[in-house]
C-alpha cells in the first residue's frame, strides 16, 4: 500500500553510515543492494521500518540500513520481532537471519512466528554453512559435508527450509537466489505486501567457507536447466525451450518430465493460492540437493488471520465491552469491606 505522505527516497537514503563488514565477494552484498534499491519503491517510511536480526553474518544486516534496527541474539529474532510487531502493528518489521540462526538455534521461534502468522517479512539467507563461527556444517548442509566439526563428513540429513515453512503453516513462502536481483526484489516486494508472516529463502553464496555451493543452480549458464520458475496460473515448465515440466504422478509425487513425452496438458499448473499446501509441498520436495532442478518463486501465498491485527482487535473488543480500564474499579473488583 502506497502512502501518499511518503516522500520520495533513493537508495542512499536507506543506507546507514556504517561501513559494511562482510567478506569481499559475499552474497550478502547483493541481497543488501537488492533491499536498499527496493525500499524506495515500496512506498514506506524509513522511520516506520525496523530490521531485526539474530546472530551470524546475515544478522549484521540491520546495521547497514538507515532504519530502526535491532541486532539481537542467536536465533531469537523471530520472537523479538513478534513482540515488536504486536506492540506496534503500525511498523513494518523485517527479520533477517541465516540458516543456522533461523533453522538451528532459532528453529522453534521461526515455526511459531509462521504458524501465528505474525506480520513479519522474514528473509532467510541460506548459505548452507556457518560463516561467522568459521565454517561448521549447518542444518541445511548436505549429508557428508566435510567441515571443521565434521572431518569425516556430516551425518545429519538437511532441512528443506521451504518444506519447514509450509509444514509450520506459513501463508507466504518463496525462494530466490543472490545472483538474480530482479527476482529477489520481486519476491521481497510480494513478501512485504503480504499480510502475515512472509518467508523468503534466498540461496546465498559464502565465498569463504562454502564457495560455489549454488553454482550448479545459479550460474548464468545453468539457470535455464536447473531453476524451475514457479509462476501463478502457469504450467510449471523450464529449460531453454521450456522443454521440461513437472507432473504430479498417480502416486501423488511430483516429477520432472519432457513435455514432449506427456503433452502440455499433463504439466501441472501452479496455483500459489491453493488453500491446502499439498501442491506447494510436493514442489518443495522436488529437489533434494543443489544438483537437481530446483523450484524458485512463490510456493504459497494465501490469506489467513494476521496475528498482530487479531491481538490488537482483542484490546479494542475488551474496551468496547467494558470501557477503558479503570484502575480504581479494578482494585475494587473483588469483594471488599470497609473498616
Amino acid at each position: 500500500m502506497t502512502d501518499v505522505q511518503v516522500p520520495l527516497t533513493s537508495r542512499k537514503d536507506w543506507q546507514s553510515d556504517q561501513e559494511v563488514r562482510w567478506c569481499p565477494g559475499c552474497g550478502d552484498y547483493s541481497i543488501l543492494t537488492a533491499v536498499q534499491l527496493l525500499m524506495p519503491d515500496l512506498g514506506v517510511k524509513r522511520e516506520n521500518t525496523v530490521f531485526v536480526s539474530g546472530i551470524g553474518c546475515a544478522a549484521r544486516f540491520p546495521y547497514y540500513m538507515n532504519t530502526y534496527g535491532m541486532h539481537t541474539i542467536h536465533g531469537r529474532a523471530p520472537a523479538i520481532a513478534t513482540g515488536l510487531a504486536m506492540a506496534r502493528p503500525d511498523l513494518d518489521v523485517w527479520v533477517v537471519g541465516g540458516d543456522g540462526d533461523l533453522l538451528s538455534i532459532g528453529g522453534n521461534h521461526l515455526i511459531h512466528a509462521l504458524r501465528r502468522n505474525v506480520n513479519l517479512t522474514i528473509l532467510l539467507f541460506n548459505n548452507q554453512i556457518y560463516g561467522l563461527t568459521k565454517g561448521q556444517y549447518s542444518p541445511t548442509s548436505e549429508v557428508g559435508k566435510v567441515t571443521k566439526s565434521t572431518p569425516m563428513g556430516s551425518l545429519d540429513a538437511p532441512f528443506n527450509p521451504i518444506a519447514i515453512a509450509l509444514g509450520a503453516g506459513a501463508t507466504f513462502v518463496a525462494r530466490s537466489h543472490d545472483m538474480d536481483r530482479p527476482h529477489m526484489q520481486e519476491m521481497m516486494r510480494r513478501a512485504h505486501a503480504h499480510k502475515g508472516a512472509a518467508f523468503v529463502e534466498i540461496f546465498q553464496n559464502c565465498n569463504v567457507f562454502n564457495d560455489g555451493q549454488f553454482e550448479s543452480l545459479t550460474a548464468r549458464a545453468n539457470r535455464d536447466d536447473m531453476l524451475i520458475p514457479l509462476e501463478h496460473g502457469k504450467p510449471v515448465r523450464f529449460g531453454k525451450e521450456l522443454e521440461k515440466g513437472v507432473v504430479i504422478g498417480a502416486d501423488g509425487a511430483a516429477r520432472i518430465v519432457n513435455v514432449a513425452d506427456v503433452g502440455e496438458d499433463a504439466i501441472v499448473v501452479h496455483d500459489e493460492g491453493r488453500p491446502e499446501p499439498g501442491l506447494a509441498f510436493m514442489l518443495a520436495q522436488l529437489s533434494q540437493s543443489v544438483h537437481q532442478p530446483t523450484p524458485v518463486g512463490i510456493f504459497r501465498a494465501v490469506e489467513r488471520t494476521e496475528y498482530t491485527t487479531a491481538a490488537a482487535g482483542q484490546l479494542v473488543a475488551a474496551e468496547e465491552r467494558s470501557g477503558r480500564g479503570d484502575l480504581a474499579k479494578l482494585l475494587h473488583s473483588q469483594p471488599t469491606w470497609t473498616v
Partner: protein
Amino acid sequence: MTDVDTRSGTSGGSTSLDHVVIRFAGDSGDGMQLTGERFTSASAIFGNDLATFPDFPAEIRAPTGTVFGVSAFQVQIADHDITNPGDAPSVLIAMNPAALKSELHRLEPGGLVILNIDEFEQRLYDKAGYTADPLEDGTLDAFQVVKVPMTSLTKEGVKESGVKPRDAERSKNFFALGLISWMYTRPVDPTLDWIRERFGKNEMVMNANLMAFKAGHAYGETAELAGHRFTIKPAEQSAGVYTSINGNMAMAWGLIAAGQLAKLPTFLGSYPITPASDILHEMSKHKSFGVTTLQAEDEIAGIGSALGAAFGGSLAITTTSGPGVALKSETMSLAVSLELPLVIIDIQRGGPSTGLPTKTEAADLLMAMYGRHGEAPMPIIAAYSPSNCFDVAIEASRIALKYRTPVIVLSDGYLANGTEPWLLPDVAALPDISTQFATEPNHVNETTGEPEHWPYVRDPKTLARSWALPGTPGLMHRIGGIEKEDGSGNISYTPDNHGHMVETRAAKVAAVADDIPPAPVTGDVDDAELLILAWGSTWGAIVTAVDRQRAKGRKIAHCHLTHINPFPSNLGEVLRRYPRVMVPEMNSGHLAKMVRAEFLVDAKSVSKVKGVPFTAAELEDAIESMLEGAK
C-alpha cells in the same frame, strides 16, 4: 482421645478466641483449596486479619487416597494484626485417612481434629499406609476428635437437587465449609453468594453446593457440638476499604497499574510455569487497560517478545519461575546491553531443576544477582508480603523506565498463593512513573552534517540513555548486543570503550541507590543486641518472632530489604550499628554472602531450604540460641 461427636451440651453459646489456625486437608480432587479460600474470604469480609498458606502437590489429581495426593490449606484468622498463617494449626479438617496421616504431625497438642468419618475404612487405611486403625491405636490420644459422616450427610442433604449420587459426593467440601463456618461463626451470605455466582451456569450443581453448605452449617447447629463454637472478633484495622488479595493477583494488578502510571501500553510475554502462571492469567483478562499478553512458545520467546515490545515503547514484562529465569538469562544480558526497560518477575519455587514446583523457596537471589554471562548488573527488588507485590511491581517498573534497564522482581510461591487483607491504595496517590522519549536529534553527523539520533547519549545524573521509538522521523538508529561505543552506539571493540561501558552500566545500576528509601529498621532501633536482616517472604514469620522475643525482654531490631541491588545507601551503617547480625533466608545464605562480601560484617546465616516457610517458633529458637550462645 475425647469423643465429642454428638455429645449434648449448651446450644448457642460460643467461646471467644483472639485467633485460630485452621488447616483443611483432603485429596487433590476434594476442593480443599477452594474450601480454604472461601473460609478466608468470609473471614476477611467479617473483618478479621488473616494470612493463608496453600500447600498442595504438583500433581493435578494424584491417585485418590494417597499421602502424596494430599492438598492442604492453612489459614490464621485473628482479632489483631497478624503477619503469617501461624506455625501449628489448632484445628485440622481431615477429609480422609491420607490427610490425617500427612497433616496430623503439624497440629498443636490438644488441637481439634475433624474427621470425615465415612472415609475411615480399611481400604483407605491401606492406601494411606496405615497399618493399624488410627482411630483405635492411640494416634489421636493427644487430640480432641470430632467425627462427622460428611460424605453420607452430603449425599443425603443434596438429594433434592437432583444430582446423581456419585456427583453428590463432590459437594462434600461445601458441607465441611458449612460446618467450619458454623463453628467459627462466619457470615454465611458471602459464601452463598459466591456459590450462586460461581456455579450459576449449572443450576443443579449450584443447588447441590448450596444444600451441602447449608447441611454442614445445620449439622453444627443440630448436632450441638458443644464447646466447639467460637467467635473471633474483627481486628482493629486502619480505616479504609479492604479486599482480600494473594501475591500473584497483587503482582498482576501492580503491573497493570504501572502501565497506567507510566501512560504506556503494557506487554507481557510469558510461558506457563508454576507458580507464576496466574499472573499471565490475570493480566490476560484486563486487555481494556491496553495490556497485550502473549503466551509464547517458550521462556526465551516470552522474554524475547517482551524485549521487542520494549523497543517499540511498551512497558514490557516477562513472568516466570526459577527454571524460566535460567532460560531467559541470555536475553536478560541483551537487555542490559541494549539498555532497554524490562521487568522480569521471578516467582521462586523449590529447586534445582523441576525441584518442588508448588513449594516455596528463595534460592534464586544469587542467580538474579550474578546468573548472567559477562558483567551484567541489574536492579533486584523483592516483595515481602502478598499485597506488597502490588507496590513492588510499580517500583520495578519505575526503575526500569527511568534508568532504561531490566529489573528483576523476586517473589515466591508462598507470597504468590498466600492471601491477606489489603487496604486498597488511593489510586490518585500512586506515583507518576512516566518517562521521556527522544523526539529530536541529539547529534550532528560529522561527515554529512546531518542531524541524527545517538542512542547512547546519557542523562548525566541517572546515566539513562536516550530512548527514541521506532516511528519517530529522523531518529532512526540501530542497537544491538555487540559492544557499542558510548554515545553513538556504533559497534566498538576498543579496549578502553569496553572498560568504560562495563563501568557505566554498573554505575547506572549503582545510581539507583540515590533514588530509593533508606533501609528501614524497626524494633529496638537504638539499642538492639541483635539485628535481623532479611528479604522476601520471611517477613511475616520474622515480625511475629521478633514481637514475641521483644515481649520477653530481648532487644532486637529488624531490617527487611525491598531493594537488594543496589542496597540502600545506609545499609552498611545499619549493619555496623548492632553487635550481631542474623540473616534468615529460605536458601543456603545468599543475602548473608552478599552483605559479608560487600560490608565485611560477620552476618550469620540462618537457613531453611525445605520447601516450606520458616515458622515463627523456628526463628525464635534461632534468636535465642544466637543470643544465649553469645553470652
